[in-house]
Every structure is written in structure tokens, then in C-alpha cells.
């Protein structure tokens, strides 16, 4: 009975997330009412479940108690200016940074204690983490394929190389490739284990429009075909608008908006996500300046 209720609640969360009409406060109330192990291993379990996640570095709050749940097969964008807490949040999702408090569950595993139970089913790509320059593309994929325990590795390297148009580049050192080619190799590394959860930090940074568009199509197709959960951190609002079904906007470590790009644009009455993002961040900056000025006056 309790399980059925939990499943119903989770279904509600899933529906709400998909319809993307719910205000963040309402979502949070529903989220907090979920039973501790509701739906674990079931069809409706969130792929990523974050509760009251908080990270403080020496008195500075990087992430200030955020909660959200991401269902399988969804693409969610983490937005925010520099220092908003996106990278720290992604690092905590992957277990690279330990939270000060709160929990992160990925594919059912508590990332603080049991990350090694699921890390082989997760992968990531970021322009801030390179892969070894001296190794050829094939050698890099070989190494990561072994670490992730990919079956029929040679075959998989061939497949992923074809999908990402890397076949001709397989025997060239990674360090000698162009920026666009390197991004495709990084993406190949991120897809070598066919992850169920894929974290992408600025996946099209420094790419020309044609390559960037091609990369977006690849991500879209992968998420759709594999029913993978994708978390995307990006400053490119057009990219977010195209790929993401949901946007979580962070500012100074707090969630200030959590809905679909279309709902967010409509709520602020703007033409696109870029204008909406600027409206939100500048309005909040203005509010902060006014508050600071009033504080000074007092």
C-alpha cells in the first residue's frame, strides 16, 4: 500500500516534471513527502535525486540546500552565471565533491557512500577536463573502455567512432586534433559505456555553429534512443532551449527557477531564453543593489 502510494507520488512528480507547469515550491513539497525508498529500482524511480544538497567552502556557500529529482529519459539544463554553483552541483552528482549536508542518489545509489556501485553507468564530458594528449583516439577509448568494463570493446570503439565521425581520426594523437574534433572525442569517451546518466558541462563551448549543431543533434538522439538522463550545464541559451525539457536556474547556490524553457519564457514575457535569463539575473542584481543601498543608508 505504502509502495503504491509512493509510486503514485513519484508518478505525479514525473508527470509534473514532464508537463513542466509546477512552481518550484509546490514541487519541493511533493518531493519532500516522498517515502525514503519509494520506487527504488522501479520504472518510475528518479535517475537522479537530490535532497537539501549543501556545499560550504570555508564559510562560503557554493550550493545552499537545493532539491530536485530528474526522471529517466529527460534532458535538464543547469543554468546560472559564473559562481552560481553549477560545476559544484555536477561534481557532487558525480561524487567528485562530498556535500557538506544533504544527499545525492544516482540510479538509486547514495553517491557519498556507494558511488562505485553506479559509476560505470554514468559518464561525463567537460571542456575543463582533458583526456591524455599523447595517446591516440583509439588508445584513449581503449583505456576508458577497460576502466568502464565495456564488453566487446573493439567493436564498441568502432561503433562510437562511426556515430561521432571519428573513424578517420582513430590513430591520430588526441593532442593534434582541432577543437571540434577534440569535442567529438570527449563525447565518444563519455558515450563509450553507453551511460544511463550523462553529465555535460558546456558540451559545445568553442565550437563553430555547424559542429555545435551536430553535437546537439547527437546528444538529442542519444538521450532519446537510450532513454538516458542528461544533465547539461551551459551558457548557450539557444542550446538549452533546443535540448532541455527542464531548466534549473541557480544563483549563488540556490534554485531561483525550475520549469520548462517555454514556461519560463512565458512567465517573464520574453521572446527567448537568453532574454529571460538576462531579465532574471539583472532584476535580481538590481534588487540586490537596492537592498545593499538601503542597508548603507541605514
Amino acid at each position: 500500500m505504502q509502495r503504491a502510494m509512493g509510486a503514485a507520488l513519484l508518478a505525479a512528480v514525473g508527470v509534473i516534471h514532464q508537463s513542466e507547469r509546477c512552481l518550484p515550491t509546490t514541487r519541493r513539497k511533493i518531493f519532500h513527502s516522498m517515502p525514503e525508498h519509494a520506487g527504488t529500482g522501479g520504472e518510475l524511480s528518479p535517475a537522479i535525486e537530490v535532497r537539501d544538497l549543501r556545499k560550504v567552502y570555508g564559510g562560503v556557500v557554493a550550493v545552499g540546500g537545493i532539491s530536485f529529482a530528474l526522471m529517466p529519459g529527460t534532458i535538464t539544463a543547469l543554468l546560472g552565471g559564473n559562481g552560481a554553483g553549477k560545476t559544484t552541483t555536477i561534481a557532487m552528482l558525480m561524487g567528485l565533491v562530498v556535500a557538506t549536508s544533504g544527499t545525492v542518489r544516482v540510479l538509486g545509489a547514495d553517491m557519498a557512500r556507494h558511488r562505485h556501485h553506479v559509476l560505470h553507468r554514468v559518464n561525463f564530458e567537460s571542456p575543463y577536463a582533458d583526456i591524455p594528449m599523447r595517446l591516440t583516439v583509439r588508445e584513449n577509448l581503449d583505456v576508458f573502455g577497460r576502466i568502464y568494463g565495456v564488453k566487446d570493446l573493439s567493436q564498441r570503439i568502432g561503433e562510437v567512432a562511426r556515430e561521432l565521425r571519428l573513424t578517420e581520426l582513430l590513430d591520430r594523437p588526441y593532442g593534434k586534433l582541432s577543437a571540434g574534433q577534440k569535442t567529438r572525442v570527449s563525447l565518444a569517451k563519455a558515450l563509450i559505456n553507453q551511460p544511463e546518466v550523462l553529465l555535460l558541462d558546456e558540451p559545445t563551448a568553442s565550437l563553430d555553429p555547424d559542429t555545435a549543431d551536430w553535437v546537439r543533434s547527437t546528444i538529442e538522439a542519444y538521450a532519446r534512443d537510450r532513454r538516458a538522463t542528461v544533465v547539461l550545464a551551459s551558457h548557450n541559451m539557444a542550446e538549452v532551449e533546443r535540448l532541455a525539457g527542464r531548466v534549473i536556474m541557480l544563483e549563488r547556490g540556490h534554485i531561483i527557477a525550475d520549469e520548462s524553457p517555454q514556461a519560463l519564457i512565458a512567465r517573464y514575457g520574453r521572446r527567448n531564453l537568453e532574454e529571460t535569463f538576462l531579465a532574471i539575473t539583472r532584476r535580481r542584481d538590481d534588487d540586490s543593489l537596492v537592498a545593499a543601498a538601503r542597508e548603507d543608508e541605514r
Partner: protein
Amino acid sequence: MMAEQGRHLLAQQGPAASVRRISGLVLRYWYVIRSSWPRTAELIYWPLVQMIMWGFLQKHLAQTTSLAGKAAGIFIGGVLLWDILVRSQLGFSTTFLEEVWSRNLGHLMMSPLRAWEMGVALMVVSLVKLSVAMLPVMILANVFFGFNAFSLGVAFAIFFANLVMMSWALGFVAVGAVIRWGLGAESLAWLIVFVLLPLVCVYYPLSTLPGWLQPVALALPPTHVFEGLRSLVLEGRFDGQAMVIAFALNFVYLTAGFWVFHHLLEVARRAGSLVQMGE
């Protein structure tokens, strides 16, 4: 309960999975060694220069003093054994530094690779680098100066094992410091082993040290190795008991070294320094 594993992946638990991940990382370093002949030459260069310099010094002393004539092989043997300690520690630490220099550490830390598996891979690679560096040098020491390290037989294997274990213990501490404090601690990876040089009696007997320093020296496993080399060359006597003590000490140091590495890795996860290192 964890969700079930994808069918396209091999089993992730158990010894076979660990061996596969370790071999993957070893392969990554082997590809680097293989791709650059200057790096291979660099491995051999310094031990070769040391061996030649000390070989000529030994030759000169053998012609001018009766002790050195009697103790042929002490200096060259000492140099070769000291270089085993140094090269093995540098092989361990610089292999890890490759990950920091290439900004690949984040990829490994977010992969299924365990900390201890990374440690084992670094040990294996340090042995590979040591073999590449020392085998040609040992052969040349025999050709030019008539010192055949392998003629020491089992004793040489025991000396070798003790020195390599100590080098790994130091390597774990150096790597842990780099993980925690970033490249600001890189010099520790290069220099940590040299703090032992005056203490472990490479070129002089233990009795040369002041009395208060001798217990400190005896608490370090390499001291037993270098004392053992001298007693073998000068007296033809192998001190098995000293070697047992050296192994016991090495067990303690290696365990402590790994603990420090693991602890600093966890501190780095809490401090967020792994993310900054990736950037």
C-alpha cells in the same frame, strides 16, 4: 538496492573487474612511455651518469687505498641500490603527475576506478619504469666496472624488494599531497626521497652517524639494505635478521603511506580541490 547493470558492460565487482581496471590504467601509462623515446632516454640518463661517475671514483680509490681495493663494488653497489629507491619513487609519483599535467584526473576520479586500484597501477608502472631505467645501467656497470648486481643472487632480490616497497610508501605520501594541495606540492614528488639520503647510510656505515641519530636511521628500511650490502661485500655475510626487520618496517610504512594517500584523497573530495585541479 542498486539498479541492475547494463548488459553491454562486464561485471564490475570482484578481482577480475579490478584487474581489468588496473590493466586499463597501466596500459594508459605504457602508451605514454611507448609514444616518446626522449622520455625513455630520460629514464636511463641520470642513473647512467651516476653509475659512470661513481664507477671511476671507485676505480681511482681502489688504486690508491687498500680499503676501497678490498671493498670493490661498495660504491657502485650503493649507487645502483640508491637509484633503485629514487627511480622507483619518481616512477610512481611522476606517473601520477601525468594525470595532473594532462588534466585527466577528473576523468579518473569520476570513473569506476577505486583509489587502491590506482595505487596498484602506479606500483606496476613504477616497476616497468624502473626496469627500463636500471637494466641497461646494471649491464653497463658489469661491462665497464665488473660489478654484477645479479651475482649477489637472492640477496639482491631482497634488497630490491625492500627498496621498492619504501619507494611506494613515499610515493603514496607525495601523490596524496598533490591530490590535496595541487601542483603547489609537486616539488614534494621530486624531492621527498632525498630526505632519506643522509640518514640511510648509502655511502658510509651506520657507525659514522652520531649515536642519537642511529636509532632514527635504523627505523628506516633502506638503512638495513645498505648495511646489508656492506656486510655482504666486505664480510661475505648475509644478515637475514636485518632483512626481516626491514620487511616489517616496510609493511608499516607502506600501510601508513596508503592511509595518508586515501585520507588526503577524501579531504580533497571534501575541500573540492579535485574540481579545481581539473580546471
